[in-house]
């Protein structure tokens, strides 16, 4: 993105040219990264940006082509959430982040593929079929923001927005060899993000470098009165320079190297941590005791909230409705049976069960308590370290349909990303190496709330001293 902005000003390249070329490239795309491409809208925005740049406007986002995950509402552009039930849905309003990007002159190039309603980590459950990993087309790009991650990695946009409920930005960023940030809960407005699990969802930026991610984060962060969970945090002005890592205490939790972590991922991660150490960081051996309960609590809370959040897709006001049913309840049943895919149905059922009379205390309430324990774990952890480092995922990108019939194994892959969602903390995934199949490996850094600056600038320093983020598929 920074490179694009520079080209607009110092080379004879205009947003109009670039977006036109990009649209042509997207047409040739075989990754299935996009669900909808807004050719007319993006050309119009590009022309507008071209004029503004000619007039000397220096806003960095001007004319920057951004891809948006298809669960973020865009006025007049279909927003399907990768679901049949919303396949014909066109929002009547823009999400807060879209308003922000538009007002800065960014070009919303199109809507990217995802797991249906962002429920998944493979981008295979969408109604338009799977997105392929640019590094190996037989593999998953990760998910649920797989379309956004693949589009960034394949150069089909300059940056992208994803959403992260349990790792949906960081895991695909890791699988696709790029940088993805899950910001602090409350730092980016959720208004217009189609809710999956409201207390965990957060919109975040995905790009090729920590600097680009920082620029995109600046464009979307900030208080929004339309989101009651949004926080009016006074961020210090962003700096696009790395920091001196000397003396930075980086905690490496023992349980982040538990069973299930692939040897090759561990190898690359250890080497990444060594790089940080060589740059002057102090590595702190520590642990997050309750991490082992993270996945279980997450799938109760997330699914419980989802079961309620997805109740509005009833065929009454918008979306696909099964016609010619005999009664109201038949209309509901058949609309939802036809409109939702299996994974979404599975989660609605699990969540409904967890909230049912007699089970609430046993499941939802208990999970909420675990959540509090985890929050306390991290609070004390940040007493002895400034950042926490670990793997983003236990494995690298796997075959597209390797785990279709094994939802539980897929859920368990979220073990390292889930804690940041349950605690609301900011976390980033940056490329830190390649496995033996030449697939990217991601390193995750977690910071105290609202310390995205620390995450991003540490990542910048890391990227200034490594080349993993520069390798293209």
């Amino acid at each position, binding site marked *: 993105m920074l490179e694009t902005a520079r080209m607009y000003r110092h080379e004879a390249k205009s947003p109009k040219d670039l977006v036109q070329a990009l649209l042509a490239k997207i047409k040739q795309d075989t990754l299935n990264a996009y669900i909808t491409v807004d050719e007319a809208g993006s050309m119009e925005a590009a022309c507008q940006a071209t004029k503004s740049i000619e007039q000397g406007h220096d806003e960095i986002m001007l004319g920057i082509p951004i891809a948006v995950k298809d669960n973020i509402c865009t006025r007049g552009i279909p927003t399907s959430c990768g679901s049949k039930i919303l396949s014909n849905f066109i929002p009547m309003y823009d999400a807060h982040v879209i308003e922000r990007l538009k007002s800065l002159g960014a070009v919303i190039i199109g809507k990217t593929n995802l797991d249906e309603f962002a429920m998944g980590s493979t981008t295979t459950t969408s109604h338009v079929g799977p997105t392929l990993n640019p590094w190996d087309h037989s593999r998953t790009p990760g998910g649920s923001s797989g379309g956004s991650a693949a589009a960034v990695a394949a150069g089909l946009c300059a940056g992208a927005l994803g959403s992260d409920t349990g790792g949906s930005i960081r895991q695909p960023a890791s699988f696709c060899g790029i940088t993805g940030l899950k910001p602090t809960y409350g730092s980016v407005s959720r208004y217009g993000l189609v809710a999956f699990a409201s207390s965990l969802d957060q919109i975040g930026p995905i790009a090729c470098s920590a600097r680009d991610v920082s620029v995109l984060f600046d464009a979307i962060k900030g208080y929004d*009165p339309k989101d009651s969970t949004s926080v009016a945090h006074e961020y210090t002005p962003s700096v696009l320079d790395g920091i001196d890592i000397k003396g930075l205490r980086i905690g490496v939790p023992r349980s982040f190297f538990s069973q299930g972590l692939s040897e090759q991922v561990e190898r690359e991660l250890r080497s990444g941590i060594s790089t940080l150490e060589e740059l002057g960081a102090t590595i702190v051996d520590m642990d997050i005791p309750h991490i082992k309960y993270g996945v279980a609590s997450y799938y109760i809370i997330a699914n*419980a909230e989802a079961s309620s959040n997805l109740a509005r897709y009833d065929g009454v006001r918008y979306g696909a409705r099964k016609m010619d049913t005999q009664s109201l309840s038949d209309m509901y049943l058949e609309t939802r049976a036809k409109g939702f895919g299996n994974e979404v149905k599975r989660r609605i059922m699990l969540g409904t069960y967890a909230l049912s009379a007699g089970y609430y205390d046993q499941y939802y309430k208990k999970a909420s308590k675990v959540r509090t324990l985890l929050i306390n774990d991290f609070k004390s952890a940040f007493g002895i370290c400034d950042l926490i480092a670990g793997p983003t995922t236990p494995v690298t990108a796997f075959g597209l349909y390797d785990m279709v019939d094994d939802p539980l194994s897929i859920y368990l892959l979220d073990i390292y990303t889930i804690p940041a969602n349950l605690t609301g903390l900011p976390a980033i995934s940056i490329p830190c190496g390649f496995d033996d199949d030449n697939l990217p490996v991601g390193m995750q850094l977690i910071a105290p709330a609202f310390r995205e600056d620390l995450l991003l600038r540490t990542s910048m320093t890391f990227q200034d001293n490594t080349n993993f983020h520069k390798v293209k598929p």
Partner: protein
Amino acid sequence: MTIFDVVIGLEVHAQLLTETKIFCGCSTRFGDNPNTNTCPVCLGMPGVLPVLNKKVIDFGIKLGLATHCSINDKNIFARKNYFYPDLPKGYQITQHNEPLCRNGFLDIQTDGKTKRIGITRIHMEEDAGKNIHDEKKPLSYIDFNRSGVPLLEIVSEPDMTNTDEAVAYLKELRQMLVYLEICDGNMEEGSFRCDANISIKPKGAKQYGIRTELKNMNSFRNVQKALDFEISRQIELVESGKEVRQETRLWDTAKNATLSMRIKEESHDYRYFPDPDLLPLIIDKRWIEDIRACLPELPEAKRSRFIKQYQLPAYDTDLLTQSRELSDYFERCTTILDKPKEISNWIMTDVLKVLKAENINQIKVTPQMLTRLITLIEEGAISRNMAREVFDEMAEYGKLPDDIINAGGLSQISDQDDLRRTIDQILESHPKEVDSYKQGKTQLLGFFVGQVMKATKGKANPKLTNTIIREILEI
């Protein structure tokens, strides 16, 4: 025959008089074209989020304080999940475990006795839209104007033991809401709705009987009828050896009966859980005290004050305090003219008659005009009957009483000679009555005065007429 105790608890939904809805900026106005007061939020579009209207909390605290409740400092909003076409999100945002107010009471009067009715809880929630069915086509429509209109749900203890108490409680609560200016109390438009839980048990028994829930009673009269019907129905069932079923029943105005809507087994599991889109709402002491400081004088306090300060009978004070505006009107009159009972009489008859058609704020007869009219009567310038006509004209055209009297020749005949001539004629044409009067049947005085009034078309000064007739007959 067994004698039964009746146990009634009431749930009232009061629509609040906020300008905007509880979670979005749409207008709450009633009667606008369908779906004109809507936005993505109250239509439950994908991706929208609720933002709480602070006014709703203020109103809730107001009612809580007025009904002696304790105000919860930590408020949680919960989702009540169920499917219905008028419920756009598939859940209603309400309060479950942590309601705004708890453990209050309201004193009611029945048969001249005061009874305290407990208030279990008051909580905030959003209203649903409205389904409209065209049976002929057949098609159903949904109007979402009401979706997201703020409600207070007021749940009473099962403290009422008969229909009169239930109605008295509802009237008292309604008056309270109107006094606090937080609800217009309009039952027909649905801004004050009531559900009843009702059961019977053998007299003195400790254990409650199985209750039914009654819905769809949109007037005090219907509440009365529905409860009476339900009590008889339950007694008949029990007396014939059958059991009352736990169920929800609807009052059918056409059939004058309650009809089963759904039995307990069909009832929903609402799967309540805290709404993650709304943070816990913390109400500090200062917030509560600020509202307490602005509470108006409440009906009960006002009634006792009126009895004491103005020496009015209970009947008068009940009528005068039925709304804040009416009692204010009365008190404005008393500051101009210190004749509270006389003013009260006028308000209870003529003013209230006009108020049937219009709002007190629109009435053309100002306190100045009314008190002037009363003064004119006291001074003998016009008779009471004439004053009624003057009042009607004031009410219709807003003219001053003096102007009406002067323009219409309505001034009383206070000329003694004129009046004496008329009286002589009347007495001459009623010799029999004159004889009876003289033999001691003095109550005939009224008859003679009436005849004089008739002959003068009400213009005779009644006091003077009295005196003259007496003078003539009692010589």
